[in-house]
């Protein structure tokens, strides 16, 4: 089973994450596109770890998942504060540094 299939799938998922990040307007959906990009990169790491016979790739995926969890917690706290202040989740309305 050639590894390039997994890497092509990872590239497609990453591209879809980028498309979602650029085209969507809801801030939570943009955040979910970021998580999709992180998952695509995890798949690439694991595929390379399998291809090279080393396990450092899997250790790095472990750290990526931990950092993604911390980032999701803080990022969603920021989203809650923004939604409380601007009463909108549309990124086009969040365009002032100070209300």
């Amino acid at each position, binding site marked *: *089973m050639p*590894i390039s299939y*997994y890497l092509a799938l990872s*590239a*497609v998922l990453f*591209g*879809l994450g980028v498309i979602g990040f650029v085209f969507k307007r809801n801030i*939570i959906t943009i955040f979910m596109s970021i998580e999709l990009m992180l998952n695509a990169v995890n798949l690439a790491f694991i595929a390379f770890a399998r*291809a090279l016979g080393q396990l450092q790739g899997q250790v790095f995926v472990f750290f990526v998942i931990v950092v993604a*969890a911390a980032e999701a917690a803080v990022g969603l706290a920021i989203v809650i504060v923004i939604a409380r202040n601007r009463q909108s989740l549309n990124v086009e309305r969040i365009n002032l540094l100070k209300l």
Partner: protein
Amino acid sequence: MTAQLVIFLILAAIAVAGAVSVILQREPIHSAISLIAVMIALAGLFLLLESEFIAAVQIIVYAGAIMVLFVFVIMLLNAGAEERTNMSRMARYVGVPLAVFLLIELAYQVGAATSSMTAQPAADGATRGISMLLFQDFVFPFELTSILILIAILGALVLAQRSEGAPAQRAQQ
């Protein structure tokens, strides 16, 4: 058509369908559920690549904790459907074809550049090997991530609490 290829195609189809659904759905809660489907398909792909530990961590932490946090926040903020504003002409006629071209180009280039790689088995089993690496070579980043999680907890607590005047006003009403 080996069994591995069939399973890979099924899981890859679920992952791509879920990812397309994440960016096409109008309600954010539907996008969240599609993303959970993508993560479960990716856990299956990790199992195909013989990394059982990471597959379990993906299901427990990513799909079971992070996405649950997303769903909680979507329900807390009562995030509704996106407004129906039409895309600008530039976005629709230049952006969408360029986006599709990006996908095809990425997949082709990555697939062609690595087409000569084959799978090699690792020396240890996955869980034992990862634990050997984590607690011997990578013990410093491992301990740092525990501090990172603590900082994230404190940051989320400080950010999400209301200012001090608000609870007193609410108590008086």
